[in-house]
């Protein structure tokens, strides 16, 4: 938006400003409220001046300006009318005179349109309020890990400035420490208990609330909360929810919970790819300093907030508070003490690690209630403390300085704990949907004999396909236990990509052991039309049969070569028949054989 300074007030302000010494930039610039069509740019000067942001497509070409003639040291300019998912370069200063920017370091990228997915990288850091070598190392490790790539959002998980969250402490621990990142990456934060020493999240008063601009009226999506203590926002295809664990609810129906449920109901209708929640005090943590079994606010968040998150399908929760890293299983419906935690609360008993026993998988894309939540304690941003790290909900517990890097790419969300030497010491991934991986797996076991037949019936109920793989090696251990834990996929690819099939997520009903291996049977073919999947370990054979409209037989003929695969999605082990040429390839039938 252009707002040239034409008024008399502006002229007077300009004249006044011109008589003063040049202002010094003492904070920022930093970026707030990233929307598809706008960005708020904030900075602080040592003396009051007018405010102006100039912006454009390239440094040296900042052709647009927006300004405010009011004299102030706390500058906050809303740049509106921008194009979604677009990079802008900018400068800040007083009207007509930039004091910083107009170079390669000062830029921002607007958010994708709400609901539009593109790969996102987020950096989250918790309890990072102690300045010094530890915080420097964690920050620099991320810089190294990121390798100069873009960071879409910077997430502060509370206790961002020790000891009491004063403006001065924030200056050193946040604005000076992360200056380079803050001028190009919008920052979000939650209220931690140390912020609560100098700021009051119930009255919204204090330095924390003065220095940040957060949505209160659903400016960036979600439902209006009326407060900067708890709120939500959309960023592309992700819905973020920020809660305030300093006013953890003592009962159902508090203002925060009423808002949370309404916001989640709205989000469910919108059906984003992911819902990510952030707050400070972790509902699951075992430490000598903080124990979620004994600390009141943690217990209350677990009892009163988590049931809503489960019901409406939140995917991941990031907290801080304990000065450690802890990461849970994919959990559901656990609201009691650690002693009450059991296998029934594990949606998936695996570790979720793509380099361990495989990603957590959710059957549906978008949002699905009680599909499991991963809880992360990310509180070792500047300090580690002795903790027992033995909460049974946790897969991983580390007493290491570090931070968490979150990558969201379509139906896949990956979070990695990056320690202070830039090494990844834990990771988990959640993958949504039952579709086949977009590309065939590599390095699969082969068999000398194979056959693939695809039939496009007179009507969709007559569609069918069958794949036989014979004479290869099929070890029981490689197949895992699909009746309980292992995710499998049966997929057929043509030259353009996935053609048929999909995944059979762990515990899909229909699996039974046989004398020679495993068999999946479903007379209705509810999963991709699959009626039968026989895995004969002794004979080294795979037989997959699908039929009906759910089989998804496409228009034929097919684009050769064709590859039929069985993939253990957890381990990556796979078995394949690769058909280079067709025996038959017509509009009604495709047949290919090996040898």
């Amino acid at each position: 938006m252009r707002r040239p300074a034409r008024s008399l007030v502006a002229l007077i302000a300009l004249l006044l400003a011109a008589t003063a010494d040049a202002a010094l930039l003492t904070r920022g610039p930093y970026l707030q409220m990233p929307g598809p069509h706008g960005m708020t740019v904030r900075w602080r000067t040592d003396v009051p001046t007018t405010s102006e942001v100039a912006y454009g497509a390239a440094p040296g070409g900042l052709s647009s300006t927006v300004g405010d003639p009011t004299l102030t040291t706390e500058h906050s300019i809303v740049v509106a009318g921008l194009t979604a998912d677009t990079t802008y370069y900018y400068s800040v200063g007083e009207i007509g005179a930039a004091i910083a920017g107009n170079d390669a370091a000062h830029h921002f990228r607007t958010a994708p349109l709400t609901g539009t997915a593109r790969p996102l990288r987020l950096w989250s850091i918790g309890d990072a309020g102690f300045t010094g070598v530890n915080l420097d190392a964690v920050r620099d490790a991320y810089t190294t890990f990121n390798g100069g790539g873009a960071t879409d959002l910077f997430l502060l998980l509370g206790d961002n400035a020790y000891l009491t969250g004063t403006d001065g402490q924030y200056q050193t621990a946040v604005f000076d420490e992360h200056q380079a990142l803050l001028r190009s990456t919008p920052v979000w934060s939650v209220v931690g208990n140390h912020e609560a020493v100098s700021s009051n999240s119930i009255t919204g008063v204090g330095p924390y609330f003065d220095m940040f601009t957060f949505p209160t009226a659903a400016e960036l999506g979600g439902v209006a909360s009326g407060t900067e203590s708890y709120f939500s926002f959309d960023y592309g295809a992700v819905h973020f929810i920020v809660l305030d664990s300093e006013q953890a609810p003592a009962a159902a129906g508090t203002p925060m919970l009423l808002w949370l449920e309404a916001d989640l109901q709205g989000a469910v209708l919108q059906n984003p790819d992911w819902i990510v929640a952030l707050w400070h005090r972790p509902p699951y943590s075992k430490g000598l300093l903080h124990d979620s079994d004994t600390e009141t606010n943690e217990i209350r968040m677990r009892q009163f907030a988590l049931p809503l998150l489960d019901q409406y399908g939140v995917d991941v929760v990031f907290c801080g508070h304990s000065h450690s890293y802890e990461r849970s299983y994919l959990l559901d419906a656990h609201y009691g003490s650690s002693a009450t935690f059991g296998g029934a609360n594990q949606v998936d008993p695996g570790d979720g690690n793509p380099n361990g026993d495989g990603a957590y998988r959710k059957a549906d894309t978008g949002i699905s209630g009680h599909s499991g939540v991963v809880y992360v304690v990310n509180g070792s941003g500047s300090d580690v403390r002795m903790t027992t790290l033995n909460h049974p909900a946790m897969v991983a517990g580390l007493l290491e300085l570090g931070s968490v890097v979150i990558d969201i790419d379509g139906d896949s969300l990956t979070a990695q704990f990056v320690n202070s030497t830039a090494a990844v010491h834990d990771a988990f991934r959640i993958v949504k949907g039952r579709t086949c991986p977009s590309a065939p797996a590599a390095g699969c076991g082969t068999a000398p004999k194979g056959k693939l037949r695809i039939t496009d019936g007179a009507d969709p109920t007559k569609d069918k396909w069958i794949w036989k793989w014979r004479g290869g090696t099929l070890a029981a251990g490689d197949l895992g236990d699909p009746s309980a834990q292992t995710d499998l996929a049966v997929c057929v690819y043509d030259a353009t990509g996935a053609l048929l099939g999909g995944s059979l997520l762990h515990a899909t009903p229909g699996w039974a052991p046989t004398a020679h291996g495993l068999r999946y049977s479903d007379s209705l073919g509810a999963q991709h039309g699959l009626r039968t999947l026989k895995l004969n370990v002794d004979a080294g054979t795979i037989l997959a049969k699908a039929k009906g409209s759910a089989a998804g037989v496409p228009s034929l003929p097919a684009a050769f070569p064709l590859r039929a695969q069985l993939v253990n999605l957890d381990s990556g082990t796979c078995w394949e028949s690769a058909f280079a040429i067709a025996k038959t390839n017509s509009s009604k039938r495709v047949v290919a054989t090996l040898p």
Partner: protein
Amino acid sequence: MGGFATARRWCARAACLVGALCLPAAALAHADVTELLQRAQADAAAHPRDPEAHLQYARALQLGGDVDAALAELDIAARRGADADDVDAARGAVLLDAQRPQAALREFDRLLQRRPTAHAVRFQRGRAYLALGDAAQAARDFEAALTALPEPQPEQVLLWRDALLRLGRPAEAIGALDAGMARLGSIVALQMAAVELEVQDGRVDAAVARLDALLAAGGRNPAWLAQRGDILAAAGRLGAARDSYQQALDVIDTHASARRAHALNDLRDRLAAALTSPPRGSAPCAAPPARSSP
């Protein structure tokens, strides 16, 4: 920014301390408080002439529950030149937090006589009055403060409502909620509180209008539509109730993701049952909104 910024700056300088000092001592866990006390004490010892260090140490003592020591430290802060408004506000907050509202009132009165525009302090004085059982004075202070504060919070507006309800003035309580929403917009927590009061007083159309306002501002939330139907059904307006139920059902049925959210799927079942059953009065589908105070 202008006047708004001026008001916020005042908050940052003085009133923020008032607000912060009114957080309950339970805000920090014991281990945190111990560490905070140690560090704040060390900081005050290292910078004995810095009034801010003594204010922070007083805050730490307050969080640790040591009221007398906190008050003594505030005296030291005052002698070291801390802003008198900051000190008085902090002293009042310490006393209020310590369940000594009468003593807190004296501190707030003194400050407000000196600075009548200290709106955040006036709000805290309202809390002190409320603790003393003087809901009328509390309501007056809440009203004056919340109509002047640059950014009132939903929880503060609900406290104003509570004071008026304690006085047996539900209509004025609704007025307080509306005044809050005039500043904040149609906020769920406030609008639902108003709906509850409207229903209690038998103002069905007003309650429905409030839900309509929420629906207009916050989207076609099926739970709100169902609640709208419940209110109409309870009033015997069964045709209109069924329309609301049907709209709620349609919203859920047209969103596959809504059917995957268990609470909405349960609501769907109840709506479907209500729509297939013979029309009769008072067949609630959605639970009434819970009432709460901050």
